[in-house]
């Protein structure tokens, strides 16, 4: 009996440690969002932006923070290790298509982690004092489009991440390329500075690229800072990019797998 009890205690401790980490993570999320809001409030004191109002921007910051793990470009260590350390050989033995396996793996990770982490913000942020709070969506139609765009965004982001994993077949090491990939996705996805606050030319450029469609568009639709017809057009563009990236991704993967190099020993 004693050993079962100690086993139970051990498990409980592990779970509690995870809980401490979860609470810590929650704190971090709130801290980031509030700090960004404070900075934007200071900017808006002097002048306002024509593209997005402060209230809209605050909601945008909250949502982005809530769904950050969905839209961020942090790559999966497990998949990286597969290629860098040679475990890819086991994967290749399985009678499945490696591209789609990675795609759905990334998708599942992003969904499970992402939606779970968004809950605290979505519950607490709307009730913060005015000027800090997450506002309701601009309208019912906007909300529906937001949900559609968000799901497409997750799939699109998973597809973008897959490009990175495929690139590992060529570079063989994620050191360095990892941070280049991260910088590009975060910048063009509007995480360094919201796309609505970029100069005109850059905004247009960013919305042509898939990164902003995955990491910025849903939240702008929610706040109502772009009109409905444009939103509809961008959602179609999301679908087009998704098809484009996944189809080219599968073709490249299949081609590359014919001469794949297994590392490690």
């Amino acid at each position, binding site marked *: 009996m004693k050993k079962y009890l100690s086993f139970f205690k051990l498990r409980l401790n592990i779970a509690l*440690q995870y809980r*401490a*980490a979860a609470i*810590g*993570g929650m*704190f*971090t999320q709130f*801290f*980031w969002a509030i*700090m960004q809001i*404070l*900075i934007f409030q*200071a*900017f*808006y*004191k*002097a*002048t306002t*932006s024509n593209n997005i109002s402060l209230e809209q921007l605050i909601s945008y910051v909250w949502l982005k923070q809530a769904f950050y793990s969905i839209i961020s470009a942090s790559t999966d260590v497990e998949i990286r290790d597969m290629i860098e350390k040679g475990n890819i050989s086991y994967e290749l033995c399985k009678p499945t298509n490696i591209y789609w396996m990675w795609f759905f793996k990334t998708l599942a990770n992003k969904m499970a982690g992402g939606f779970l982490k968004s809950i605290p913000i979505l519950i607490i942020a709307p009730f913060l004092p005015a000027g800090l709070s997450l506002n309701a969506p601009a309208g019912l139609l906007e909300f529906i489009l937001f949900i559609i765009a968000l799901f497409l965004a997750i799939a699109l982001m998973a597809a973008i991440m897959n490009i990175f994993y495929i690139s590992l077949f060529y*570079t063989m*090491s994620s*050191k*360095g*390329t*990892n*941070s*280049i990939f*991260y*910088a*590009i996705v*975060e*910048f063009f996805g509007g995480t*360094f*500075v919201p796309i609505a*606050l*970029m*100069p005109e030319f*850059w905004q247009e450029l960013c919305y042509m690229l898939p990164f902003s469609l995955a990491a910025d568009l849903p939240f702008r639709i929610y706040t109502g800072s772009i009109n409905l017809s444009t939103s509809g057009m961008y959602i179609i563009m999301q679908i087009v990019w998704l098809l484009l990236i996944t189809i080219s991704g599968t073709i490249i993967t299949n081609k590359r797998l014919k001469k794949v190099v297994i590392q490690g020993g």
Partner: protein
Amino acid sequence: MKVYFKTILMLIKMQLEYRKAFIVSVIGSFLITFLLTISVYFLFEEFEQIGNWTFYEVAFLFGMVFLNFSISEMFLRGLDHFENIIKNGEFDRILIRPQNALMQSTCTEFDLSKIGRILQCLIVIGISLTNLNIEWNLYKVFVFVLMNIGCFIIFLGIFILKASFCFWTIQGLEFMNILSEGGKKVAQYPIDIYAKWFRIFFTFIVPFGLVNYYPVLYLFGKADNWYFGILPLFTILFLIPCILVWKIGVKHYESTGS
């Protein structure tokens, strides 16, 4: 000290062995800071100023904070990844050697690729200084150097604190990133733009205000109080408790791993 430099030199040589990977990492670290600088520029294109601070003034702060953060990341990588040292039992080995444990933990890693960021930060500081009309004199040069030292000391304290907590938690805590990453982000803007409670925290608890706000007021000629310039010295008061926590942590240490 001699041992320290010798270890660092070896770690540098080790990284230079993988030439291609090294170059790509440098480009990567340069690119991130470069795009972050562009982002700050975009914000000022849209808004022109924040509080009564202009782009070049903020760019100067941004450059200084990121410079010292990158230097800390380069030299203190071992403390940043301290949970690994604890987890695999490496710390036992450190304790039996006749050298300072903190120093040894620091030189387990050295991230040379951060040189890309440092370069980028120096460029940003250079550009903003040429566009700011500062009336330089010997004292102001001294203040400028002191600011950088103070800023580094704060990050040093934060990294030590972050590592010390690993003695209790074994795991690295995401929470501690609020101080390192968060502090970096907070300190790139002059702290008078924030709400009061926020300002107090970052002046008296984690003293970023002492290295970026007050000395800069004096440096830019926004205030005449000469003693604003020596406030960075007080960052030592932040470092002392951090080292104390470390010392307590070492006493508390129980071996793990195999």
